[in-house]
C-alpha cells in the first residue's frame, strides 16, 4: 500500500449527503477480479449519460477537476454496500483524500486499507473547503497527515483528528496482514486452544446428512 504523508491537490466538491457506494461505483462494474482499472467507472451513473457520453455538468468532467486528488461531500459518505471497489475506483481515478462531516463505517475502514485518507470535519468546515474547491486549480489544498492539518489557499490552517494507529499505518504504508502475523501469532494460537470454544463445529463436514428445509422451517 502506498504511504500517505502530504498531498497538495485540487479538490472536487460533491455537495450531497448519503453518497452511497452504489453511486461511487455501480454494481455492474464489479465483475472484475482485479483491483485496478475502475477509475473510469467512478460515479458512472452521474458522470455519463445512457450512451456513455460524459455529462459536462458533473464535477469530475469539468476541466479543472479531472485530476482532483481530494473529494469533499456532505454527511454519511460511503453508506450502503461494503464493496471495496469504491475506494479502488477513487484511487484509480487519483483521489487520495476524502473529506466529509461523517462517514459510513465500512467505507471509512476500507479507505485506510488502500492508502486513502478519510477526514472528518464539521459541516461548516466542509462547506468552507467546498468554497475553496469552487476556484478549481487556483485553490489547491494541502493535506498534511504528519501534522494533521489542512492548509487552505488563503493560508488558514484547519486541524483534524485521527486515530493514532490508523495514522501510523497510513504514514508508513504498512501491510496489516504481515503485521498481525508477526506480532500476534502466539496470541491467536492460544485463543484458538481455549476449551470454551470446543462447541464450535467445523464447516468441513456436515454433522448430519444434507436434507430439505421443509415446512414451518423444520427439516423433512
Amino acid at each position, binding site marked *: 500500500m502506498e504511504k500517505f504523508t502530504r498531498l497538495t491537490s485540487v479538490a472536487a466538491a460533491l455537495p*450531497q449527503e448519503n453518497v452511497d457506494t452504489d453511486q461511487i461505483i455501480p454494481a455492474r462494474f*464489479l465483475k472484475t477480479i482485479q483491483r485496478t482499472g475502475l477509475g473510469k467507472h467512478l460515479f458512472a451513473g452521474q458522470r455519463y449519460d445512457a450512451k456513455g457520453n460524459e455529462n459536462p455538468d458533473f464535477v469530475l468532467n469539468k476541466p479543472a477537476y479531472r485530476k482532483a486528488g481530494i473529494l469533499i461531500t456532505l454527511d454519511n459518505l460511503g453508506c450502503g454496500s461494503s464493496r471495496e471497489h469504491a475506494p479502488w475506483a477513487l484511487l484509480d481515478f487519483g483521489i487520495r483524500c476524502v473529506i466529509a462531516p461523517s462517514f459510513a*463505517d465500512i467505507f471509512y*475502514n476500507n479507505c485506510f486499507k488502500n492508502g486513502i485518507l478519510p477526514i472528518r470535519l464539521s459541516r461548516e468546515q466542509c462547506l468552507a473547503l467546498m468554497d475553496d474547491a469552487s476556484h478549481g486549480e487556483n485553490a489547491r489544498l494541502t493535506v498534511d497527515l504528519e501534522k494533521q492539518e489542512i492548509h487552505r489557499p488563503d493560508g488558514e490552517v484547519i486541524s483534524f483528528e485521527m486515530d493514532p494507529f490508523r495514522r501510523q499505518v497510513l504514514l508508513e504504508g504498512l501491510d496489516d496482514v504481515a503485521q498481525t502475523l508477526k506480532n500476534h501469532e502466539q496470541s*491467536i494460537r492460544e485463543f484458538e486452544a481455549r476449551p470454551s470454544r470446543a462447541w*464450535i463445529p467445523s*464447516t468441513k463436514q456436515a454433522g*448430519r446428512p444434507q436434507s*430439505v428445509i421443509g*415446512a414451518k422451517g423444520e427439516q423433512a
Partner: protein
Amino acid sequence: MQNPVTPRTLYDKIWDDHVVKTLEDGTSLLYIDRHLLHEVTSPQAFESLRAAGRPVRRPDATMAVADHNVPTSDRSQPVEDPQSRLQIETLEANVKEFGVPYFPLRSRQQGIVHVVGPEQGVSLPGMTIVCGDSHTSTHGAFGSLAFGIGTSEVEHVLATQTLLQKRSKNMRVRVEGDVAPGVTAKDIMLSIIGRIGTAGGTGHVIEFAGSAIRKLDMAGRMTLCNMSIEAGARAGMVAPDETTFNYVKGRPFAPQGEAFEQAVAYWKTLTTDEGAHFDEEVVLDAAEISPSVTWGTSPEDVLPITGTVPRPEDFADPAKAERIRRTLAYMGLEAGQKIAGTPVDVVFIGSCTNSRIEDLRAAAAVLKGRKVAEGVRAMVVPGSGLVRYAAEEEGLDKIFRDAGFEWREAGCSMCLGMNPDKLSAGQRSASTSNRNFEGRQGPDGRTHLCSPTMAAAAAVTGTLCDARDLLEPTMAEGAA
C-alpha cells in the same frame, strides 16, 4: 477486561468472548468464528494471499457460495456473460486451491450467502461472523455479532482468522406490543429506519428487543437484522431464545447431540444483563406501525402506504428541500401525491432481505387465485435451492406460476443490478430488497421497497397499494 459484575449487553458479551488481545490504543484483535465468501468481493483477497504465499488459516471456519453475479435462469446452461463466468470460475478455482468448503452453483444448497449460512446451521448464536458484504448483519438474528467487511479485511481474515476492530457503541431499539394484521418484520424495520435515519446507527451495534421482536420467527428477525446496515449500524442483533434454538437444532452444520446441549447452555447466557448501559435507546409502539413503502432514493424515505409524498416547500432547510426536489424528479413522483395508486412495471420478490420460505408463503397468501395485472413483470427468486425446493413441495410455485410470476433459480438477482436481472431506465419496481439508491436495480431504475405481502399486492393491482385490502381477515392474522 471488564469487571465481571458490571452489567453487560449482548454485544459486550460476544465482543469480550472474542478478544484475542487489546492493543495499547484500545483497538482489539477480534477472533472470527465464521467467514463466508462469495464471488464478487473475494478474488482480489485470494490473489493477494497467493502472491504472499500464505494459506487460508482456517478453511474449517470458512464457507463459500456464488450468489451476486449468477443468472437466475436455467441452471443447466453455462453462464453466458464471460466476465461473470470468469468471476464464478475464479471462486471455484480458489476454493479448490485453498481447501475452502463450497456449495456449487448447480447444487441444491446454493443460494444467497445470507440465506445459506443460517439454513445450513453454519451461522450460529454467540459467533463472530463476517463476509465481504454489508448484509452480513442478517446473521445477527441468531444472537451473533455479524458484520460486513471490505476485501482487504477478507484477506486479513483468510490469513489470520482475526480482524483489528474498535468496539462500537451500544444502541437498543425496542418494539413493544403487537403489530396489526398484515404488518410484517419488513414494515417494522422500514419504520425503524424512517425514524432514526440511514446514519442513525453509525458507530453502533443495534440490539433489537421488546415483545414485538420476541414474537418474530427467525425469518422475520433476519429481515430486521439484514437492514441494520440501512440504518448505518455496524451490526444488528436479537438475543437467542427458544425460537432460535428450535431453528438451529438439526441443521446440517449445527452441533449435534450432546454438543448441541452444551452449546445451548452457553447460548442461554447471551442476553443483555439488567441495568446494562446503552448509549442510545429508541422505543417504537408496534401498534402504530403500518404496512410501509419507500418513496425516494434512500431507505429512510419511508411512508405508511396510506401516506403522501413530501413537498420540498415543507422543509425549511434549503439543502433538504433540494434533496427532496431532486429525489422526486428521479422517482417521477409529484410532491404531495398519495403513494398508493402509483403504477409499477416490475415486482421483485427475493434478496437476502425477503427470499425465505416464510416470505414466499406470505406472498402466495395474497396471490392465491389471483393474477398479475396486465403489463406488470413479476418475478420471484427464492433465496436458495432448498427454499425453492421446499416451496415446490408445498405447491407455492404453482400459485406463483398460475398468477403469472416467473419462478426463478436462487441468487441475488434484481436486488443489485449486477446480473442479467435489472430494471431498464425509468422502470418502476415494488421490490422486497433492501436498497432504493439511484441506479441500484439498474441505471435510472426506480425502486419502492416493501414487504413480500405488499409486493404481491402490487403485482395483482399493478400499483402500490394497501395489501390489507386483499387479505382475508384470517390470512392477515397469519402474515408474518
